[in-house]
């Protein structure tokens, strides 16, 4: 293997973004084929990014919301 696990973990984001040069990308794929630990690491990085998509968001305070709706009404309608 031309790439060790320590290198692999640092290139995961580039790999997921398809931002690696073709040769470096092939090294990652070759490594994945042989290393269950890095396959798991990659999957967990992917899961982490996906979990972030589901984070609950705060809402605007209710009075701010109604002020904005009122402003929209008076300025635009």
């Amino acid at each position, binding site marked *: 293997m031309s790439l*060790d*696990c*320590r*290198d692999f*973990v*640092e290139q*995961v*984001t*580039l790999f997921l*973004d398809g*931002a690696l040069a073709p040769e470096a990308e092939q090294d990652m794929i070759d490594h994945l084929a042989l*290393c*269950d*630990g*890095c396959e*798991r*690491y990659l999957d*967990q*990085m992917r*899961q*982490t*990014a*996906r*979990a*972030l*998509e*589901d*984070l*609950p*968001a*705060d*809402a*605007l*305070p209710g009075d*701010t*919301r109604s*002020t*904005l*709706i009122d*402003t*929209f*009404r008076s*300025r*635009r*309608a």
Partner: protein
Amino acid sequence: MLHYADSMAGLPADDVLVARLRSGDEDAFALLLDGWSGGMLRLARSFVSTEASAAEVVQETWLAVIEGIDGYEGRSSLKTWVYRILTNTAKRRGIREHKVVPMSSVDDSGPTVDPSRFRPAGDPFAGHWWQFPPSWPTPEQGLMSSEVRAYLAEALAGLPERQRLVVVLRDVEGRPYDEVCELLGITAANQRVLLHRARAFLRGKLEEYYLEEGS
């Protein structure tokens, strides 16, 4: 440009929305307000020092949208345009509050995984895992529990600011690469470094969480 999250939220396409806003359609405005304010608050919070201040930034942004929608030329997506107003407003206020986000910092180098987890030089398998990362429970239907998400939200707050800004924009808000570069005034390479460090930190936090839960 219609993003997945927005199409899921049932928002009409940009040109339809803009036309409705310009004609004073209150429902269209309320739809945007409710759909985007949460993400905008989170983003604003990364620039300013209090929740109240973040809410004011979001309010100021919406006021600018109400006044400026006639000037929107459709050269970027509507959401990109709104986010630009937001980041400019938030940055100005951040500077007033002396909370300037430094765009160069020291926490952007060094390994993102503890080197002691890999076999040292001299070992026949130097640079390889001593032990594979522990596996995580498979979440049902691919969704993490609300407890895990709350924990993740807390972990997010522990990130250095630049990393938090990038990961919030990219992963939480799903904004595209080029837009994030432009909003934060950073290069693509810099953005990838920050995103990688942030995700690696958060992965580590989730690992800690699952280890503790499993013990």
